[in-house]
């Protein structure tokens, strides 16, 4: 074991915990759906944990991210708590967005999460705008735009990459390539190379194993440091895999991918299993210690789920609050009652 490994023990364990937190959250969310306790549906991040954790651990809480419909992982990796997240998923008043956003719109402004987005590619402009603010205000903060391979087909990406490159904005475009654009293999929707598309704008681009949390983290940390010194933007393609379907109801997937493929990724390339094994090999943690971490997080999740189930829904009079900032109730306001009350 090298000295640097020892020095970073706390950080390594933190990376592990964060990945386990995401997986545990998602397993519980899936169960809530299966038990018909969650309104609507949701998109599981399981399998992609190393991407969110590797990137967000390289950021400060004042750095901004934008997230996607598959956004629970980003939200947790950026520092969100189980209770408020489960409350949001169940539409409860104590949720991060007072139950008004739900799974696909979780935002956590205090930790720099500008929100999940239910329009594929919809947040590419927002992340780029956050980077513009950072540059104009001189805050030295950076922005990371998470999106999937499916979103690379949206024209918006090319428009904002062009401007980010022209204006040298501190933003990382992080493409989580999980191989499938909803129910369609990426090879059928993406011509040429994704990396080459970013490179066409003169944007420095990288491809990394998205299942290797240390590789993701090291790459991102280096790029973030350079962004803070005025370089950028950057593009990263992260090769990853989602174990579940496009959403929780996508159970029969044989028409677009094989069971063998799913099994192989889970068996050979699971980010948590592989990193756990590495922690043991490096003598950073024993398997018992890792099991303890997992059971602690499971208990925390169980408590948070119960808390959210028992938590109250928003009062009915909240239905027209938060439509406009500075206006208590939107319905009287739009008819000319200036107090909106």
């Amino acid at each position, binding site marked *: 074991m090298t000295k640097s490994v020892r020095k970073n023990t706390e950080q390594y364990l933190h990376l592990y915990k964060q990945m386990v937190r995401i997986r545990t959250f998602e397993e519980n969310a899936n169960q809530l759906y299966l038990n018909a306790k969650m309104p609507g549906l949701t998109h599981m991040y399981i399998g992609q944990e190393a991407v969110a954790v590797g990137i967000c651990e390289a950021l400060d809480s004042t750095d901004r991210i934008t997230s996607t419909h598959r956004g629970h992982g980003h939200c947790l990796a950026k520092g969100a708590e189980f209770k408020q997240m489960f409350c949001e998923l169940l539409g409860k008043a104590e949720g991060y967005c007072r139950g008004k956003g739900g799974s696909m719109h979780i935002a956590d402004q205090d930790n720099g999460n500008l929100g999940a987005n239910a*329009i594929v590619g919809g947040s590419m402009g927002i992340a780029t705008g956050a980077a*513009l603010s950072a540059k104009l205000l001189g805050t030295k903060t950076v922005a990371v735009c998470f999106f999937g391979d499916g979103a690379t087909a949206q024209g918006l990406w090319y428009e904002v990459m062009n401007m980010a490159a022209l204006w040298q904005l501190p933003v990382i475009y992080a493409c989580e390539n999980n191989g499938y654009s909803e129910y369609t293999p990426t090879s059928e929707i993406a011509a040429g190379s994704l990396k080459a598309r970013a490179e066409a704008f003169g944007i420095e681009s990288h491809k990394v194993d998205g299942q290797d949390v240390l590789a993701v983290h090291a790459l991102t940390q280096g790029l973030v440091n350079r962004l803070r010194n005025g370089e950028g933007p950057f593009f990263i393609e992260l090769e990853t895999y989602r174990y579940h379907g496009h959403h929780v109801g996508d159970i029969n997937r044989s028409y677009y991918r094989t069971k063998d493929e799913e099994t192989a990724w889970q068996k050979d390339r699971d980010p948590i299993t592989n990193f756990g094994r590495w922690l043991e090999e490096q003598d950073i943690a024993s398997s018992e210690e890792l099991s303890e971490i997992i059971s602690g997080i499971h208990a925390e999740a169980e408590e948070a789920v119960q808390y959210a189930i028992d938590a109250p829904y928003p009062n009915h009079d909240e239905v027209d609050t938060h439509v406009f900032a*500075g206006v208590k109730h939107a319905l009287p306001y739009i008819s*000319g009652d200036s107090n909106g009350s």
Partner: protein
Amino acid sequence: MDREITHSQAVNEAIAEEMRRDSTVILLGEDVAEAGTPFKVLSGLVEEFGTERVIDTPIAEPGFMGIAVGAAMTGMRPIVDIMFGDFLFLIMDQLCNQAAKTHYMSGGKLNVPLVVRTNLGATRRSAAQHSQSLHALVAHIPGLKVALPATPYEAKGLLKTAIRDDNPVVIFEDKLSYQMKGNVPEEEYLIEFGQANLLREGNDVTLIGTSSMVQTCVAASDLLAEEGMSAEVMDPRTIVPLDERAILESVRKTSRAVVVDEGHQNYGITAEIAARISEKAFYHLDAPIIRLGAMDVPVPFSPALEDLTVPTPELVAEKALSICRGELVHDA
């Protein structure tokens, strides 16, 4: 002290004053800097505020609109210049799915204080993709405020209010009126949203006109006066929020209403205002409410055809007279 300046100068002054007052106000759009837009409305701003705050963008409306939304969420107050109102269709996702809903979806945690400055109005012989009046489209979306200045005075006062608002505001200028002159005080002022302006008092009919149609209604009231009818003329100034009370008060007094707006009549602003009057002042009405919007066809190029599509003072007066005289006959 009052002085006369053009609508275009009023807009320029509003932006310059707000940019001096608040360093987070920035301007983004196509040819907004040295060119000062094709209408030359923004001339001189880049010289004062520099290219960091007056930002020329590529021709990529969804992209720079999205960037403005993100900048607004993180501390700036962007003014987005959409060169022609017709190009609003290009930014619909960023404006209506992102900007309009962010405050609500985040449970009030995130604000999007931005202004989209654009325009409306036909009869510039610019055909179907440079002549539309699309304010009804955005007024339909909860979370957006919509302002329709009709004079240089309103252009300045409403824009300054829009820039200071913590919400996304879409402000439509009448592109035919950029050179129109009007009284604008030297002193600073703001115009509160949701406060209609009563331009003429009258007893026989209320003419409610927006933006380009305000002057049309004023001219129509002159024609009506020649016929011995006195028309009240009202300019709502903003349609979200809408000063319903002022409109209803006037209609309760006159018992008749003609609503005139340059957006298409079908499912438009005129329908909305007419519906509110009929719901809330029905028993005060002596006649059906008349709607006059732009004709429900794409705006034609040929002057001979284009002029048929926009309500004129003569048409407004004719319709108003017909309800004042009880001549309006419904098809069986």
